[in-house]
């Protein structure tokens, strides 16, 4: 199957604390650079290309992921593949109290 080079794979990102820097930059769209990206791959991409929007990096310099994900309103593990049109919430899992 050939790639449709005219199609732009856009996804929407909503950042929650502690990753969100401010209200203005916490919601944005991102073009998926390649197919079959996982959420963890996406987090690295956002780290590298949207760092001005981040208060805290999604992965640290050793590649350790801190973030948790919701995709289209449902919980999603980091290995889940991202699809065009997905609305992805990135937040931090806390244990509770």
């Amino acid at each position, binding site marked *: 199957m050939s790639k449709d080079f005219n199609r732009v794979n856009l996804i929407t990102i909503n950042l929650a604390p502690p990753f969100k820097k401010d209200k203005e930059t916490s919601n944005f769209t991102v073009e998926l650079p390649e197919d079959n990206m996982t959420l963890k791959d996406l987090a690295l991409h956002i780290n590298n290309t949207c760092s001005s929007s981040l208060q805290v990096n999604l992965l640290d310099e050793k590649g350790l992921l801190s973030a948790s994900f919701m995709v289209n309103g*449902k919980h999603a593990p980091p290995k889940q593949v991202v699809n065009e049109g997905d609305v992805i919430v990135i937040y931090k899992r806390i244990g*509770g109290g």
Partner: protein
Amino acid sequence: MNKILRVDLSSKTCKAEELNSSIQNEYLGGKGLLAYYMYHELPEGCDPLGVSNKLMVFCGPLTGILPGNDRYVIGAKSPLTGTFSDSYGGGWFAATMRKAGYIGMIVEGVSDSPVCLKIDDEKATIEDASNMAGMGTKEVDLALPGYKTLAIGPAGENLVKYACIVSNAGKSGRAGVAGRGGLGAVMGSKKLKAIAVNYTEDATAEISEKNKDLKKELMKHLKEDVVPDMGIGGNLAAVDYSSQAKVFPVNNFQKGYTEKYTALNEAAIEKVMTGKTSCHLCPAACGVGLKASNGQFAGTSTDRLEYETVAMSGSNCGNEELGPIVNFNNLCNDYGIDTISAGSVIAFAMESAEKGILDYNISFGDANAQMELVELIVKREGLGDLLAEGVSAAAKELGKESESFALHVKGMELPAYDPRGSISLGLSYGTADRGGCHMRAWSIASEAFLNIDLGEEKVNPFSPEGKAELVKDLQDTNAALWCLIVCDNLGYSVDYALKMLDAVGIKLTEEEFLKIGERICNLVQLYNRREGLTREDDYLPARMYEKREDTGWSITLEDYEYMLNEYYSLRKWDQNGNPSDEILKELNLK
């Protein structure tokens, strides 16, 4: 440093055994080891307060070595629920136990008189503690200078079904409370007043030195990326979140909001904060101390206050100021009872009295009567003797519709988030292995609270769709993380857990790590089913299916059963919650 201390209080003997490496490979530490030993060593149907129950204490393979893992788990068959029960605490006990050379201890038998278990490096002795009988946990701790302690108060000695175990109750440094499930009563039934541990030669010295660079990196990560987002510390920010989400319990969960929450929230507490205390190797300092400045019980201070206590003894009992909460916290910690269960039982008594079911002079907001009831419960005098059995037993005795507002699952009182405002939490409570508990899967953070953080609704908190997967995933992940025992406040991800384990020579993939969590959840389910629990025990109290008077919210039985059925299916359990042969083989449990 991977020894398990076997203690027999009947014969007054102690013996150390090396942790079997194949058991550690499958169960790692912490909750994993607890689940393994409880399943394999507790006789079926044993009396929780009898000689055959065992009290177990474990820490994890990272305890004392890398920051954010310095917690202990205490476990036994619960006298409150009859289930597997694991309760966690922070502070300094876990690290000290590990540095003394132990990853855990298993206490069996019953002493004929009050005793204290003392551990000095690898030497363990059982000493007479008759002079400590009746002492509060603070006095016990101070009576053991130079040691880190686990202690019970008079509530544990009197076998109050929700008696707790407190560490470091009197000395400086953050205290820890293993609050839930009545494990203090198990300790009391064995006449074990305290466990005291000290070391002179640090058994973790070599591996700690080897990992000092990683330790520095993690401390930097916690200080820069985690602590700034924690507010004044711990979970006190939850008062604002719960209030905004309208899940903050008021008057025995009759409502979910009070405008008076601003007198109880983080900002109010910060104004009267007196200091902060830390656990071993942690920069968070989440032990928030405060002194009530006005109103009733003005001048009362406490070293550490948490959200659950604020809510369950505060708004849930009709209190609108900090003084009664601070006083209640002090009483419960020193007498050694769980603030969540005690708050719930007293709120139940208040509602029962207001409805004319209970002939006792108490009502919501009557803080003096609330404190008097604490005293009666601890001493098991008058009404206190009934309430000491827990809300489920109290409601059965009182009858007359009181069971409809006895808020428990499997006998353990619900914690301070109303699931009618965040439906996944209902499933979390219903399927928690130890009864009404929010910690196994604090799913509200991925639902109602996440919407608050985002400023708009991205997750429908009233829809059952997709919630079973959320709860299962959180339970499995937490079960794995509690093998280490990662602190819930810090939110270490699985990636961090794997990196830390690798540093101490335990190499796992993400899939293998999460499989361990799933294995633990299934093993505990096998234990609970063996003890006679059924699907019927996985339901919520009646009030949660009723429309709440302020918002009209409820969880319909249809929605709840939809989530429960999907949960069982995802777990590969049958529709009665029995693990299938398929999943047991997959997890090496068959």
